């Protein structure tokens, strides 16, 4: 074989073949890409229609600062609501969910777009048997049940829906209430301050308590590795940590879980800043969540000295007992009112700002107008507030 044939021909032939193949690929791509994109858009629109059946067609809404986990948001052209695509970290990757939110802020439907969860377990969150419970719920997602054995995947789905609500809130310009967390139990309070008999709740954004004359308890929560990490932190009157109780955590055994052990918790006593927290190597994500919890708690501490305490009052409403929590400051003036519990059908009406704002600044309920069409419920509300005021005077 000549030098040319033996050494130059082979790479030359390979190059020519590669060039021809590349040409064929480019040609095919230019033909198929428009079709594929069109199909994807049609499929997405079809999915949106399933999730918000009352809509006719959609227009995308541009959001300048997309909240965390938000992918996109489309508004129904006939004004019946929005469809948000949002995601949250699941067990096997990002769980992408499409959520339909109607004009009342309630969920009209959900669909999972991307599910990489474990087959037979987390994959079930894509099934309607699980997703149907979300229909009709509002942003607080009260009463949602997870699928047993799929904590992380189910929590990821809920988180994705919450993220969707955040995007909706920005685009529609509405306030979106977060999920309600159960307040800490008396056992938790006793664990942090065994000698205190009376704990009073502060009327602030978040959850904080006055622990008698000994100090404060602040409850904060942030997303950890396998779900939310919620801590109740005890502080003394100088703002130093007295104790930590984990009220919600599913962090990995021997990794993030180590923070819940007495050895770590006891070591943080006396510290006055979140930067002083001890880091356990190999459990950084949990540490980040804890640091946020502590930072937020430390930030809240100075505000508690002047904050109003919450007093509860009850009264008989339309369908049963109504419980109201009233924030009253040291002068006896109302700073806030909040409906805690009510079986009334008109509960949403008494939570309306136009009604509740009447109470702020007053030291009695004289002159508060009831809501027309909800007389019994609003009268009960006023009576409950009165009882709360009385409780404060007597306290």
């Amino acid at each position, binding site marked *: 074989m000549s030098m040319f044939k033996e050494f130059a021909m082979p790479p030359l*032939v390979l190059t020519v073949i590669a060039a021809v193949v590349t040409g064929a690929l480019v040609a095919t791509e230019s033909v198929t*890409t428009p079709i594929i994109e069109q199909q994807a858009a049609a499929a997405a629109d079809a999915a949106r229609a399933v999730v918000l059946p009352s809509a006719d067609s959609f227009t995308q809404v541009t959001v300048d600062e997309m909240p965390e986990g938000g992918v996109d948001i489309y508004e129904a052209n006939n004004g019946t609501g929005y469809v948000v695509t949002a995601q949250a970290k699941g067990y096997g990757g990002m769980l992408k969910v499409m959520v339909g939110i109607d004009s009342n802020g309630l969920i009209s439907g959900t669909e999972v777009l991307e599910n990489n969860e474990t087959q037979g377990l987390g994959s079930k969150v894509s099934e309607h048997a699980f997703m149907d419970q979300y229909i009709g719920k509002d942003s607080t997602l009260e009463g949602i049940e997870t699928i047993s054995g799929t904590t992380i995947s189910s929590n990821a789905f809920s988180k994705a829906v919450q993220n969707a609500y955040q995007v909706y809130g920005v685009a529609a310009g509405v306030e979106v209430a977060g999920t309600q967390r159960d307040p800490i139990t008396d056992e938790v309070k006793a664990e942090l301050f065994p000698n205190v008999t009376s704990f009073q709740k502060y009327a602030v954004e978040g959850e904080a308590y006055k622990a008698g004359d000994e100090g404060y308890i602040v409850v904060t929560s942030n997303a950890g590795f396998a779900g939310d990490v919620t801590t109740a932190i005890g502080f003394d009157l100088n703002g130093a940590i007295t104790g930590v109780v984990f009220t919600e955590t599913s962090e990995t055994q021997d990794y993030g879980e180590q923070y819940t052990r007495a050895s770590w918790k006891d070591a943080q006593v006396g510290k006055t800043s979140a930067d002083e927290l001890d880091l356990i190597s190999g459990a950084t994500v949990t540490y980040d969540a804890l640091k946020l919890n502590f930072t937020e708690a430390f930030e809240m501490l100075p505000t508690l000295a002047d904050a109003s305490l919450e007093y509860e009052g009850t009264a008989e409403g339309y369908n049963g007992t109504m419980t109201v929590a009233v924030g009253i400051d040291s002068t006896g003036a109302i700073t806030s009112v909040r409906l805690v519990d009510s079986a009334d059908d008109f509960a949403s009406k008494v939570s309306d700002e136009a009604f509740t704002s009447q109470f702020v600044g007053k030291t009695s309920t004289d002159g508060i107008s009831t809501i027309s069409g909800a007389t019994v419920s609003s009268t009960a509300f006023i009576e409950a507030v009165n009882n709360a005021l009385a409780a404060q005077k007597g306290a």
Partner: protein
Amino acid sequence: MKKNKLSILTNGIIKENPVLVLVLGTCPTLATTTSAINGLGMGVAATAVLVFSNLLISLLKSVIPDKVRIPCYIVVIAGLVTVVQMLVQAYAIDLYNALGVFLPLIVVNCIILGRAEMFASKNSPLDSALDGLGMGMGFTLTLFMMGSIRELLGSGSIFGVSVLSTPIAIFGVAPGGFIVFGCLVALVNKITEGKAIKKKEFSCADCPVASVCGQSKLACEKGEC
């Protein structure tokens, strides 16, 4: 040896079934046979690629120098699979979603490269195309059979329609796949009475890289390769 056209075609179905006799393409076989329809879809897609790759490589066999034949085959096969992938995504989106990652994985399906090397590089385009079709049919048939068995036993359904209420889950995952695979290999062995493929003595001359192997011919003949 002039093979009769029909025998080339039927060769791939039992006698030299690529999955059960030549034991090629085991990976996509186990992965896509969780249901009959997936196995069928994979088989049809692979057959399309096989026919055209065999045809192309046979047409180019006199042009491709021996030294670079493997890279050349791979470029052709990869290009072909990518074109098929784009066409399937544009015109058969349901099949595309069902096959998922296994469509692009046809590139590394040993059957394609194996037949290019074993047959297409040494035979006429028409014969090669027929061989591709036969091998593809054998592959599809095997995948369909395995898929049906595993779907029926593992999920209790036939083509997605539930018929059994107590499936045996292990057949839906790898261990069960291997069990079914082994049983089918045994079955084929029985049918062909163990004479399916002539057991060749593998000597240096049969080695695919013989032409570039550095070993001296003498050592090779002594069997010291």
